[in-house]
């Protein structure tokens, strides 16, 4: 992906030298070839975004009446809403508490399973299984795992004469229960990227490190991790995007409860659009999310490019 971006840049740079007013033949051809996807993008991505911006600026002034221009009123109401701030805070905790552990876990698993043996291949496949389930299905399974008293977790805790908390019904625990599910679901996926990334670490770098007398920890710290930087950056982007765009499990397991303790931004937007029937505020919430996503993506892509630069000085 980054490779493509880099080469696209190179092309752009080459072209800016003495470009004629009229597009050159190959530019016209390029646009011609791009036209079908540009058309689809325009219809299904950019047009809805424009519509969304308009909706975010409108509100119903009379009940049952039309949507009228309301300026930034929706954004004011959005940030004044305690539930929105709560969802934002929850999302931050959720982001930190899922991305970092999944990354560490995925890296650990990848390091443990990097050598291609038959046992490792089997283990890799097993660890990858959660990725194959749709999130909705995984959440439905966890509904039974978390079931108080009868569920899988409580069943085994009871054998140890312990009683678990009300996993999804206690406002102090519910968000962490959902985070556990997310980590379980994503770690195997991220492991795959790390496995690929580890193939790119040259063997002679390790040999040199061993000759210099580096212990395993030093080899990880000074050889493996620097080579994996682009992979870490990339997985981080994917992880952060997942955090904002996936709420299927919240929908299935808690509907944002108890008392909004598992409400995340996207689910809040859903509630505004569907339960409160406030299209304007839902659109405003979506725009805030969109801004967050753009910031995350832009920030991480720049980091990515920089780390590519470091690799080949």
């Amino acid at each position: 992906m980054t490779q493509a971006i880099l080469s696209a840049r190179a092309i752009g740079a080459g072209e800016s030298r003495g470009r004629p007013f009229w597009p050159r033949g190959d530019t016209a051809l390029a646009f011609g070839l791009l036209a079908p996807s540009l058309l689809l993008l325009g219809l299904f991505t950019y047009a809805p975004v424009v519509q969304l911006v308009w909706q975010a600026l409108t509100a119903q002034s009379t009940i049952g009446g039309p949507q009228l221009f309301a300026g930034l009123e929706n954004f004011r109401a959005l940030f004044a809403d305690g539930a929105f701030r709560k969802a934002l805070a929850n999302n931050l905790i959720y982001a930190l508490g899922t991305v970092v552990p999944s990354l560490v876990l995925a890296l650990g698993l990848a390091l443990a399973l990097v050598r291609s043996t038959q046992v490792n291949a089997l283990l890799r496949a097993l660890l990858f299984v959660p990725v194959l389930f749709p999130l909705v299905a995984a959440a439905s399974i966890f509904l039974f795992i978390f079931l108080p008293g009868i569920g899988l977790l409580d069943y085994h805790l009871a054998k140890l004469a312990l009683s678990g908390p009300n996993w999804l019904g206690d406002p102090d625990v519910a968000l962490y229960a959902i985070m556990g599910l997310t980590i379980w679901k994503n770690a195997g996926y991220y492991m795959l990227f790390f496995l690929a990334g580890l193939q790119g670490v040259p063997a002679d770098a390790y040999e040199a490190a061993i000759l210099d007398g580096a212990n395993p920890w030093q080899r990880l710290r000074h050889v493996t991790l620097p080579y994996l930087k682009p992979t870490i950056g990339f997985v981080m982007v994917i992880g952060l995007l997942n955090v904002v765009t996936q709420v299927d499990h919240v929908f299935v397991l808690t509907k944002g409860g108890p008392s909004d303790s598992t409400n995340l931004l996207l689910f809040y937007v859903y509630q505004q659009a569907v339960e409160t029937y406030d299209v304007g505020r839902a659109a405003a919430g979506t725009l805030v999310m969109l801004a967050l996503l753009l910031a995350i993506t832009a920030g991480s892509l720049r980091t990515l490019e920089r780390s590519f630069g470091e690799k080949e000085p």
Partner: protein
Amino acid sequence: MTTTRRSLLAGAALAAGLSLAPAFAQTPTEIELFFPVPVDGQLARDMAVLIKEFNTAHPAIKATPVYTGSYDETLIKTRAAMKAGKAPAAVIMSANFLLDLKIEGEIQSLDGLVKADGKTNEQFMGQFFPALHGNAVIDRSIYGVPFHNSTPLLYVNVDHLKEAGLDPEKLPENWQDLVTAAKKLTRREGERTTRWGITLPSNYDYGGWILQALTQSNGGQWFNPEFGGEVYYDTPSMLGALTFWSDLIAKHKVHPSGVQAGGAVSSAFLAGQSSMVLLSTGSLTHIRTNAKFPYKVAFVPKNLRNEVPIGGASLVIPKGVEGERRKAAWTLINWMTSPEKSAWWSRATGYFAPNKAAYDTPEMKAFIATNPDAGVAVKQLDYASAWFATYKTVPVRKAIEDELQAVLAGKKQPKEALAAAQKQADEILRPYVEQTALKLPTQ
């Protein structure tokens, strides 16, 4: 189930395709019915059977059932279809969404259709149990026809009662009985509770409904049934109800803490981990099929009086459905709510048949004779009243449910929780109140 759903979807797609073809005089009127299945896949099949029978009996109409998920999803899909200019001819809609839909101008009054049949509104609604009128008739106009309904009900494990030395013929009738029985039924191993005396569901939607039942049993009203802009959260009747629930957890220690989802409550009852539960009458068939022990049902125990809210769904016709499609929808609605069909659906699902005459059919009499629990459920309808419905019902309900959940988790005291809920609800209701009750002559 998937195949059924898939074939339904295929049917819907086919119907949509056909409706694009030019209409000929002989072609039947095509109508779609959006229907939710709040319980399980079996019901989707039952609905297909029902509609097939309707189409055979009415060659001039071709009705297509479209499965639309839960109650909430049905609301979403109906609104989406209306926005796209393709409103379904009829929808089975959660009964407490009708007021909201009427306020937003999304469903039509059925008065004209009733009048065209030569009936008055009173004559038409007279065929249904009086408890169901409140959620169907708004400002004296009929907006919905009750299709299947429910009330909360107390389910009791008879084996556990006997084990605890309690008389299975005398089920708890009031709150004191309930606490006494629940204490005897609760089992502990050291610090760990292995069986709870009673469990009430408290997830969103269910929790509000059960709290309404407790509030009404405590003499309260919860909301103004005549005006959609008022709720009575910060009142003594509600304080008593919420404190009672919170005492079951913190004081009497006979009820698990935190939110209990509806599905978890019925599982706990079926697994013998809770001796008593309050659940919808809509769970009757599920419990009857799966309980491996004798159980009994009773009215929701009272503090001051027996009164519970209704639940369930009504048939509505969205705005914009006109002409032949409107007439066909009306034919379908009347057919589906007739005594025989109503009784058949009730036996299939466990919901009440809203049509009183359904209980005079021989099949239904035989059914009640073999399943006395269904009979108890119907008797409670005499003590039922309207389901909570206001302007923006769901967020107004969520305002109290968030606080209820905080109380059940021991995070808040009932009094402060109710004050917070009232404030939040008033805030949501403000635009409606300002445009109705507080819109006064300025000159």
